[in-house]
């Protein structure tokens, strides 16, 4: 077994790893440094060529005084607080249903995969059509149920937020269900048999056997979902463009608007640093959790 330890192997390993590290450095590490650097400057590309002016932490001070920043942050946290538990509950329900032995398993699997495979932006467009005031199916169902007036879903701030959250829950619960289903299938059947021998009802089995054993899968799924919820962009962008007014604008949309539309890179970078810190906080919680499990 000498060949496993020959020194040329180390060279080969480095050679094989080099492209991955080069690309990660180029697209992740260097940009993170550049982001922090730019956030300390006044860099507006829209007003013609202007000298880059070092402004220290002024962009951050401006952000903290910026009502739009707080509003967008509040929306982002609201969406996170609603859609993460929402997707967990719906996803768990779907996973429990899908865990039954079906004859046509592939139909069930495909139905769970389709929402995952659909682009987020398409979900936004599809559900904007669902929630259309005049021709949407949601209002038609409500009319059949006896609602006197059509609801102006996307034209009213609160309803628009509700519609966006429902769309996000629909889109993300399937992936959640797939992760939880994999966790469910790892629970040994013998545990349920033992519980039955002890006279546990189905309800007790769920609380005493299923849920505790599912906790590791749930934690991982929740943290991933939280990370993506903080970055919510595609669905509100395609459903409402942040409207009416800026009532459904998320932090990601504000960063996009500041940077790409207004070309205010300095301020946009400062906003992005806030986003970065929020995500790092969640990731730190995640890594601690992994450490606990290991």
């Amino acid at each position, binding site marked *: 077994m000498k*060949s*496993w330890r020959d020194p040329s*192997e*180390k060279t080969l*390993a480095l050679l*094989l*790893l080099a*492209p*991955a590290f080069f*690309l*990660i450095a*180029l*697209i*992740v590490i260097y*940009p*993170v440094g*550049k982001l922090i650097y*730019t956030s300390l400057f006044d860099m507006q*590309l829209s007003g013609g060529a202007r000298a880059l002016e070092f402004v220290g932490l002024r962009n951050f001070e401006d952000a903290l005084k910026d009502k739009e920043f707080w509003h967008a942050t509040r929306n982002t946290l609201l969406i996170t607080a609603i859609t993460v538990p929402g997707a967990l509950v719906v996803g768990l329900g*779907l996973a429990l*249903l899908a865990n039954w032995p079906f004859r046509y398993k*592939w139909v*069930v*699997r495909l*139905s*769970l*995969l*389709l929402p*995952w*495979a*659909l*682009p*987020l*932006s*398409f979900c936004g*467009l*599809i*559900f904007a*059509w669902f929630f*259309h005031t*005049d*021709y949407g*199916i949601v209002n038609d169902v409500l009319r059949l149920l006896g609602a006197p007036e059509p609801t102006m879903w996307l034209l009213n701030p609160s309803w628009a937020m509700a519609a966006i959250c429902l769309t996000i829950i629909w889109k993300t619960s*399937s992936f959640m269900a797939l*992760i939880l289903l994999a966790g469910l299938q790892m629970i040994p059947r013998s545990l349920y048999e033992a519980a039955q021998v002890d006279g546990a009802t189905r309800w007790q089995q769920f609380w005493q056997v299923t849920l505790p054993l599912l906790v590791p899968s749930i934690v*991982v799924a929740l943290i*991933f979902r939280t990370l993506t919820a903080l970055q919510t*962009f595609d669905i509100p*962008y*395609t459903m409402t463009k942040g409207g009416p007014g800026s009532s459904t604008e998320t932090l*990601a949309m504000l*960063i*996009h608007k500041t940077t790409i539309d207004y070309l205010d*890179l300095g301020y*946009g970078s400062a906003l*992005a640093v806030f*986003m*970065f810190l929020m*995500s790092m906080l969640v*990731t730190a919680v995640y890594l601690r959790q992994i450490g606990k499990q290991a």
Partner: protein
Amino acid sequence: MNLWTSGRLRLFAAVWIVFNGVFPVLWILFTSLKPEAELVRKPITWWPHSPTLMHYQHAFTEQPLLHYLGNSLIVASLSTLLSLGVATGAAYAIARLNLRYRQWILTAIVASSMFPLIALLVPIFEIMRSLGLLNSYTALILPYTVLNLPVCTLVLVSFFQSIPRDLENAAMIDGCSRIGALWHVVIPLAAPGVFTAGILAFVNAWDEFLLALSLNASAAMRTAPVGIAMYQGEYTFPWPLISAALIVTIIPVALLIALFQERVIGGLTQGGLKG
């Protein structure tokens, strides 16, 4: 009695899952088949009464949908191939070679996906702009490749680990070099893993919106998701056209997941659970 109820419950469960997953796409399919007059009728019709393929034709003639799809295909395929190439090397080194800190290296690659894309967008925009790469395929291919590295590497590492080392050793005793053994023995055996990783990477790249919208917004360089989202005018929403274009764009991805669903689910849960 008990069997009967559980059979019914099971049917209910299956119907509910299928309805939940398929209905939104089905509804868009119905919308795309209804003629203009039927779409603005109130109360709305559910089933298309006089189906027409007119909107599909218009989706290609009134907007350069084919061109958008072409852009999507180029960007998604090239970034998938590049991810697979880079991830195969990295995964093989991590799974097989005499490497210290292998767990750390894997964690570092996975952690790169933890950075919020929206925060990376600002500097990536700045970099691509100063390099004159805005509105180019490269502007999307490079970031997509990196975005897909973690999941590809995770899937491939576990595939490589499942291949018995003896096979490789036997090939090397027979005179193969290590690279030769990798190419002739390990990669063919890991082909299902490479394929799974490839599907995941392709779907991710095909679906991506934020970078495509921000870096490649010019009409000639839009990918399908961006192009279709921009069908909407200031006040008008050409719903039948959008619906038809959505269905056309969903078809390739729907086919991929329908044909390879078990692999896709395996890859997703591997990437998700271990990540």
